[in-house]
């Protein structure tokens, strides 16, 4: 790296936590809108970006992604079969994925029995897997059972030259203590997508602090793969199709040439790009959500109209392939191929 490059990277890293935590909502929105249309910081200043990415040694690899099984503690529920079908699909993928990431909502009501059932099925994977929590996994016992099964809610690993991050993005301010809600009542509210007393989610201050430390020594030319349950942008906040501190997360990750953000929660084919961060949504193995009628000001993708009489339509697995130049391609692997438009079947560039 040339001396002038080192100086600018150093300057970029001097953005303090206070700087990005201090972003106003208005400022954050402006940042996001500008990011949609403007080139990334790296390419604007002619540093890092493509030239730097070419220097980074990446050994190509593939990860599989599963999410949103919403298992019930009901014997032989049809969601069990669809969860297992996705696991079998991943086990048969060729080339075999190095790892599987589960992007949250294994259970529906947070019962230990639901999470246990999911873990038993995930244990049938022929490769290692990592899990992040969704709100349905969490708000019955505030993550106690989930942590017992799956460990840390925020984690990172280095794989073949890429840095892979998983975060708990579904943390809500306490809305239950004041009204004296029971754990079941708390969970009952959170499991409604339209919950209007739950408030917005995020990784919150401790999550931001963890992320800042985690990536501090990671070089900007390292491909980042970021997994969260909720999208890192304001898609449709009424259904919590957003992460409240996504602007701060994006500010922390802004130094990187390429960030591939994969999220669950939306149960649908979805894409967005803000600056250096591409976000891609995922299909569930339970049910599809409708698309809210939001006019997206950037290229976006959708699955085709689904048949409510076909319980597998719109559901499936995914895999993300990372090339030696650090770029990624996300593939949808649907149970019902007709749900995915041909252009999307060829993969989504990240």
């Amino acid at each position, binding site marked *: 790296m040339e001396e002038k490059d080192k100086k600018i990277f150093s300057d970029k890293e001097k953005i303090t936590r206070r700087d990005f935590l201090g972003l106003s909502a208005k400022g954050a929105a402006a940042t996001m809108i500008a990011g949609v249309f403007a080139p990334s910081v790296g390419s604007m200043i002619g540093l890092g970006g493509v030239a730097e990415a070419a220097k980074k040694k990446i050994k190509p690899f593939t990860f599989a992604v599963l999410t949103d099984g919403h298992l019930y503690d*009901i014997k032989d529920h*049809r969601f069990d079969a669809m969860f297992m079908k996705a696991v079998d699909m991943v086990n048969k993928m060729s080339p075999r994925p190095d790892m599987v990431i589960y992007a949250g909502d294994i259970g529906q009501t947070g019962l230990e029995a639901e999470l246990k059932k999911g873990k038993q099925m995930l244990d049938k994977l022929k490769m290692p897997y990592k899990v992040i929590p969704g709100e349905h996994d969490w708000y019955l016992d505030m993550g106690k059972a989930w942590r017992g099964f799956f460990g840390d809610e925020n984690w990172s690993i280095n794989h073949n030259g890429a840095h892979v991050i998983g975060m708990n993005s579904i943390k809500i301010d306490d809305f239950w203590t004041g009204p004296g809600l029971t754990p079941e009542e708390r969970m*009952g*509210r959170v499991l*409604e997508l*339209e919950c209007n007393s739950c408030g917005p989610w995020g990784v919150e201050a401790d999550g931001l602090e963890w992320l800042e430390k985690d990536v501090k020594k990671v070089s900007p030319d390292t491909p980042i793969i970021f997994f969260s349950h909720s999208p890192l942008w304001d898609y449709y906040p009424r259904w919590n199709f957003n992460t409240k501190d996504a602007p701060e997360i994006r500010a922390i990750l802004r130094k990187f040439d390429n960030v591939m953000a994969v999220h669950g929660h939306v149960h649908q084919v979805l894409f967005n790009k803000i600056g250096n961060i591409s976000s891609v949504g995922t299909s569930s193995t339970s049910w599809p959500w*409708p698309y809210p009628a939001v006019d997206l000001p950037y290229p976006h993708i*959708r699955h085709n109209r689904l048949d*409510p009489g076909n319980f597998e339509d719109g559901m499936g697995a995914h895999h993300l392939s990372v090339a030696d130049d650090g770029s990624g391609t996300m593939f949808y692997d649907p149970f019902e191929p007709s749900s995915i438009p041909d252009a999307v079947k060829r993969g989504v560039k990240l």
Partner: protein
Amino acid sequence: MRKKQFVKVSSAALLLGSLVFLVSGTVQSKEPLDDAADFDRLMEAVAYGDQLWHTGEGGGGKHKELSTNGLGCANCHPDGSATQPESWPKYQTNLGKVGTLREMINWCIQVVQNGTGYALDSKEMIAMEAYATYMNRGTKLNPGLNAQTSPFVISGPGYPTNNEGNR
């Protein structure tokens, strides 16, 4: 006609006419219109529909009319989205005929949620129809529309809820 007979007939006609006037006057009279009270009655139905719409999410088997597998209407149709009340009646493949929104709601309950369903003129069915229709208020009639997206974006809480329990 003799004068005495004429007086008797005229008196009878007058009496009959007065009765008809009184009766018709009673039928035609109305209570003053009270739009606010009528709207409140609608909102009671909407609120009941909202409650039913979200029953089943998480609680399997407690409301067999609605669900026996834990799924509620809101699992797939939050805010009544993608129900498209403006499009019914229409030909619906799953019904195999030109059907109504109420029939489609029952189809979802019985096929997707494994519930027993409701009579189409029941208080419950009307309440769910009221909820779905109210949440899609303002949309233009569009018979036969088949699309995957509801043509509305809700901002704010949608409509006032008391947030007691599971809504």
